[in-house]
C-alpha cells in the first residue's frame, strides 16, 4: 500500500476498508449485548443446579445456612440484604435530597462547585477503604452500644447500614440534583409569584416535579447497596442469622467472598446459587429503574 492519500474513496481497496471498518464497529457495538447474554446464561447455568437440587423453596426460605451439614437456606441473607438496603436508603435518601436542594437552589456563588467536587471524591473512594474506615472508626462506637445493650461486641447490621448509606449518598445527591435542575423555571416562578416562600416552592413544587428523577436516583442507590460486597464484609460481622440491628448479619453479597476460598462441590454451587438470586434482585431493580425513567420521560414529553 502506498501512503498516497486521497480523501475521495473510489478505489476498490478503500471500499473494502470501509466495509471492514463498518463491520468492525458493529461488532464492537454488539460486545455489550453479547456480554449481557453471556452473563445471564452463565449466572443461570452455574446457579440453577443447586437451587434445583436443594429445592427452590428450601433454598430461598430455609433459615439455616450450614454448608458442612448440607443445609443451604438463604432466607437470613435475603432478609439482611433487604434490611440493610432499606436502612441505608432511609438515611441516604432524605439526606441526599436535602443536600441536592442545597446544591441546586440555595448554595451561593462557587460553593456548589466545591461541594460537588467533594461529593465526586466520595463516590471515587474504593469500597475496601470504606470497609477499613467502618471497621476502625465506626465499629468501636457500635461496640459501646452493644455492651450497653448487653450483647457481645461484633460487626452489626447497624454498621452495615451506616457504611452503605455513606456509599450510596453521592449517587443519590448527583441524580437528585440533576432532576431538581431539570424542573422548568416557570413552575417555580409561578409558585413564587403566588406568594409562596422559597422553601414552600422547593418542597411543594420543585421536589414533586422532580420526583421521577429522584426515584431513579433511589433505584440506583438501591442497586448499589444491594450489590456492595467488600465494605459490608468488613463491618457486618457475617453470622448467617435473621437480622437484628445490633447483631451480626450476613448479606447475599458477603457470603460469596467470605466462603469462596474454602468452598467446593455443592457448597461452591450454593454460592453460585446466591449469585443467581442476587442477579435476579439486580435485574428487578434495573427493570424498576428503566420503568421510572420511561415514565418520567413520557411525563416530560
Amino acid at each position, binding site marked *: 500500500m502506498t501512503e498516497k492519500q486521497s*480523501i*475521495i*474513496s473510489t478505489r476498490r481497496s*478503500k471500499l473494502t*476498508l470501509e466495509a471492514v*471498518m*463498518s463491520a*468492525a*464497529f*458493529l461488532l*464492537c*457495538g*454488539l*460486545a*455489550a*449485548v453479547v*456480554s*449481557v447474554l*453471556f*452473563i445471564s446464561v*452463565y*449466572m443461570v447455568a*452455574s446457579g440453577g443446579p443447586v437451587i434445583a437440587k436443594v429445592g427452590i423453596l428450601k433454598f430461598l426460605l430455609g433459615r439455616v445456612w450450614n454448608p458442612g451439614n448440607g443445609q443451604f437456606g438463604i432466607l437470613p441473607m435475603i432478609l439482611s440484604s433487604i434490611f440493610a438496603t432499606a436502612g441505608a436508603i432511609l438515611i441516604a435518601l432524605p*439526606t441526599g435530597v*436535602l*443536600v441536592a*436542594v*442545597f446544591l441546586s437552589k*440555595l448554595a451561593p456563588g462557587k460553593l456548589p462547585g466545591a*461541594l460537588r467536587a*467533594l*461529593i465526586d*471524591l*466520595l463516590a*471515587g*473512594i*474504593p469500597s*475496601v*477503604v470504606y470497609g*477499613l*474506615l467502618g*471497621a476502625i472508626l465506626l465499629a468501636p462506637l457500635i461496640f459501646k452500644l452493644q455492651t450497653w445493650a448487653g450483647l457481645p461486641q461484633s460487626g452489626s447490621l447497624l454498621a452495615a447500614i451506616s457504611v452503605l448509606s455513606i456509599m450510596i*449518598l453521592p449517587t443519590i445527591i448527583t441524580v437528585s440534583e440533576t432532576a431538581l435542575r431539570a424542573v422548568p423555571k416557570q413552575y417555580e416562578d409561578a409558585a413564587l409569584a403566588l406568594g409562596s416562600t422559597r422553601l414552600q416552592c422547593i418542597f411543594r413544587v420543585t421536589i414533586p416535579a422532580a420526583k421521577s428523577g429522584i426515584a431513579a436516583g433511589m433505584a440506583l442507590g438501591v*442497586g448499589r447497596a*444491594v*450489590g*456492595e*460486597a*467488600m465494605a459490608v464484609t*468488613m463491618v457486618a460481622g457475617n453470622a448467617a442469622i435473621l437480622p437484628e440491628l445490633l447483631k451480626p448479619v450476613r448479606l447475599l453479597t458477603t457470603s*460469596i*467472598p467470605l466462603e*469462596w476460598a474454602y468452598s467446593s462441590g455443592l457448597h461452591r454451587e450454593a*454460592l*453460585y446459587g446466591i*449469585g443467581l438470586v*442476587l442477579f435476579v434482585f*439486580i435485574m428487578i431493580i*434495573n427493570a424498576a429503574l*428503566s420503568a421510572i425513567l420511561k415514565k418520567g420521560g413520557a411525563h416530560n414529553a
Partner: protein
Amino acid sequence: MPELSVSISSITAKKRRPQEALLYGFIYLLSGGAAALVVCLIVYVLAKGLPAVSFAFLSSAENPILETVGIFPSIVNTLYIVFFSLLVSVPLGVGGAIYLNEYAKNRRLVRLIEFAAETLSGIPSILYGVFGYVFFCVLLKLQVSLIAGVLTLAVMVLPILLRTAQEALKAVPESYREGSRGLGAAKWYLIRTILLPCALKGILTGILLSVGRMVGESAALLLVAGGSAMYMPQGSVFAQLSRSGSTLSVALYRYAASRGDNDTAFGIAAVLLLIVVLLNLLTRFFAGRLEKK
C-alpha cells in the same frame, strides 16, 4: 378599616417563620456535614496511612523473614490489570460508540445496545467476579489469574467507555460531518481524521473514570485473580499475566480482613486515596476543557 392595613403590612413586612428557619438550618447542617465528612475521611486516612508509606514500602515485596512489608507486587499487578483491560475495552467501547452514533440506522438495535450497556453498568462487581470465574477461569481454562481479571474488568468498564465516547461523539458539531462528506471523504476517513481527534478529550475522561473504577475494584478480582501470593514480578509479561496476584485494593482487603494488619492496610488506603484524588483532578481538568470548547 383596620383589616386592610394588616394585610398590607403582611406583604411588606418579613414574617418570621420558625419552621422554615429550622429547615434551612437542617439543610445547611447536612450539606456542611457531607463536606466535612469527605474532608475528615480523607485527612484521617492520609494521616494514619502516610507514615507507613516509604520508598521501601512502595518498592519491595513483603518479606516474612525480615518482617518487612512492601506493596510493589500489588502496584505492578494493578498497572497490568488497568493497562491490559483498557487495551481490550477502549477499542470495544469507542468502536461501539462510533457504531451507535455514526453507522446505526436500525433504531431497535441502538436501543438494544444501549439497554445492554445500562444493564452491564447495573451489575455489581461481585457478580462480575462469579461470572468471570465461571466463564474465564473455568470454561476458558484461564485459571485464577491476572488475565482472567483483565478480561472480567474489561467487560465491567465497557459501559463507562461506551457512554462517555458516545457523548463525546454527539458533541462534535454536525457541520464537521457535513463538510467532510461534502468534500467527498469516506466515512472511516471522516472518523479517523475528524471525529476521533475531536472526541479525544471525552474519550480520555471515560478512560480516567474506568481507571478509577478498576483501581478501586476488589470483589471481582478477589474471585478471578486471587492474590494470596505476593511475589516480586518475574519472567515475561505473559508469564506474569497467567499467574494469580492481588491489586492494591485486594491487598488492602487481605491485610485488613484476614490478617488484621491495619497499619499496612492504612498505608495502602493512603496510596489508593492519592490515586483517586489525582484521577479526580485529571478528570476535572479534561471535562472542564471539554466544556469550555
